[in-house]
């Protein structure tokens, strides 16, 4: 195992973690503040990808596609919140799971009705479509570098928003004690809508970022949604900081497992056993991580202080 390989795999893990964070940030806010299990979050991820691919094809530019798709995804989020989810806040989690699961099925079918069955691809500009040397022998895809940069910028922006602004103060207050915030005369409904829209836009952004790599396809949200839930549970529900650290942790551990576990197993196992056990075990690693962390910290790494 040489260190160039290690460095590149770390970047891969970081990129995956950043993507998870974009999805988990909105999810943890909605879950933490509104106490709402929102499976539709994965659908906004998918819608973001489809909107972006459509606009990119119309305008011929990926960046204009992203800029146009962001407000459209935000609007879709607000619309869904307004017509469907608003009635669910007071219901228990099972009702929310059922209703939002129904919305997933609806959206998955809807994109197949509107767009081609095998989904859409996005053509990247030439300068983003290759790999770049980072010195010392490390080369890395330019576009994945951009995802890392965008994710870090969003993380910084969210940090400033949540810990330095008045809205952020209300969001934090809402996460620790909803009733009290309402009693102090804050329009909690408006706050909910705002948070929900923000979460949907972030999920959409994650979808837009990944679409040039994976393409936009129906049902793309579910697989990553499960991991995003794992991440917010590890990080502590309602905590942006927790979501960030847990995302990076999950991304890096998952990638490292996929890269090095079979080599590691080979040191003490026969080749065909290691070949079979490697992929199986590496796909379990993130869940093992969750179990271990919950054993020591049942509230997750950074539980929001509540009263």
């Amino acid at each position, binding site marked *: 195992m040489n260190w160039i390989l290690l460095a590149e795999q770390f970047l891969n893990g970081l990129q995956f973690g950043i993507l998870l964070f974009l999805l988990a940030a909105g999810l943890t806010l909605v879950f933490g503040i509104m106490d709402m299990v929102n499976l539709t979050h994965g659908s906004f991820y998918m819608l973001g990808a489809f909107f972006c691919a459509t606009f990119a094809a119309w305008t011929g530019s990926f960046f204009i596609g992203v800029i146009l798709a962001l407000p459209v995804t935000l609007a879709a989020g607000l619309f869904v919140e307004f017509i469907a989810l608003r009635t669910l806040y007071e219901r228990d989690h099972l009702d929310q799971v059922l209703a939002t699961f129904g919305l997933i099925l609806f959206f998955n079918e809807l994109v197949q009705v509107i767009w081609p069955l095998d989904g859409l691809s996005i053509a990247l500009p030439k300068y983003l479509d290759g790999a770049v040397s980072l010195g010392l022998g490390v080369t890395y895809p330019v576009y994945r570098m951009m995802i890392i940069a965008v994710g870090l910028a969003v993380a910084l922006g969210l940090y400033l928003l949540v810990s330095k602004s008045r809205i952020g103060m209300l969001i934090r207050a809402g996460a620790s004690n909803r009733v009290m915030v309402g009693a102090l005369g804050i329009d909690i409904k408006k706050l909910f809508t705002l948070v929900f829209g923000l979460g949907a836009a972030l999920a959409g952004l994650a979808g837009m970022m990944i679409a040039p790599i994976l*393409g936009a396809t129906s049902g793309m949200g579910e697989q990553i949604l499960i991991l995003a839930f794992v991440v917010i549970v590890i990080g502590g529900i309602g905590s942006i900081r927790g979501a960030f650290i847990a995302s990076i942790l999950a991304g890096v551990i998952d990638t490292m497992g996929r890269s090095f576990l079979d080599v590691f197993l080979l040191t003490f196992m026969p080749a065909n056993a290691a070949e079979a056990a490697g992929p199986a075990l590496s796909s379990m690693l993130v869940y093992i991580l969750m179990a271990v962390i919950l054993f020591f910290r049942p509230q997750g790494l950074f539980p929001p202080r509540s009263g």
Partner: protein
Amino acid sequence: MKSRLLWLVPVAALLAAPAAMAKTVKIGFVTTLTTGAAVIGNDMRDAVELALEDIGHKMGPVDVEVIYGDDEFNPQKGKQKTEKLIKRDNVDIVAGYIWSHVLMASASTVLDAGKILISANAGPSQLAGKGCNKNFFSISWQNDQTPMALGEVLNQRGVKTLYVLAPNYAAGKNMVAGVERTFKGKLVGKDMTKWPTQIDWSAEFTKVKAANPDAVFTFYPAKHGPAFIKQYQQAGLTGKIPLYSVYTVDSIGLPRMQQAKMEGVLGTFQTQFWGPDLDAPQNKKFVDGFKKKYGKYPSFYAAQAYDSIFFIKSAVEAVNGNVSDTAGMRAALEKADFPSVRGKFSMGKNHFPVQNFYLREVVVDKDGNWTTAIRSTVYTNHADTYGKDCKM
């Protein structure tokens, strides 16, 4: 008295109806018609419809009716749909099946009912070897054959070190076993990824880069193909490490890759039993007819689906429409005496085709569309290796 017996008229008509209906042969065709993989199923259905048109919806003296079943890319659903075709629709023959795991789950339903089953794509090793059955036929290939041909190509081209990437399911394992059987160089790396959920290969491509092999071999069907090629290019591997694939780049994915300007796919090689430019009279008729009707190149899935209708027709005609004569139909199918898009071929003892395999390169055709061109014949009349374990 007369009026009292009037009710007998419709009853008699009803009783007579089944006899009249027996003049229709019913074919159940299981494929994927929902989920993203429906693009494959739709291509196959298009080809079946074209074939039905070309034969005037008639097989010898009887009419043909095809009932489609959607497996939803899921073995349990595939089995349910197969049961419905057998028990409720009472079909005479079942054909189709894209996915090896779906076919493995569904095969016993058809075979236990004593009906004939024809795979129009999946070719798992189990059904070619120990688990072969007198009523099971493949009109495609055994999974290992195409990658075995590819292994030969690698040898011919002096490839010494190879890295293998494939999904971890029945067909993926067969494909890897196939290339490993014939490739004489050294395997420097192998990753079996989760199917069908893993669609990001960043970690695997980084390992490929570190291993720096002479070539990469891969098998990723359906929507995974374009995503794979795209990430291969983004990882900077295109042009550095030659990519050889089976069933990854097809006529369904190519237009989409062209639209996304994925030039990295041009000049890559693959092996296959067929190609749209293969020189056979039936193939010219099929490809021209398909392009005329649907405005695009047919995929190999479509070619197999088209062949399966003519294959069944040869059997139905041999028994003169009496489809309950399973033994007679079986004898006809074993002869494989029908116009095939791949030209003349024979049926092996295990009911898998003994046929040629070709090397194909991805090229731009004279109209500017991306397609494949046959470059050489790798295997002539090749039989799969599992046939020797088949006792029937």
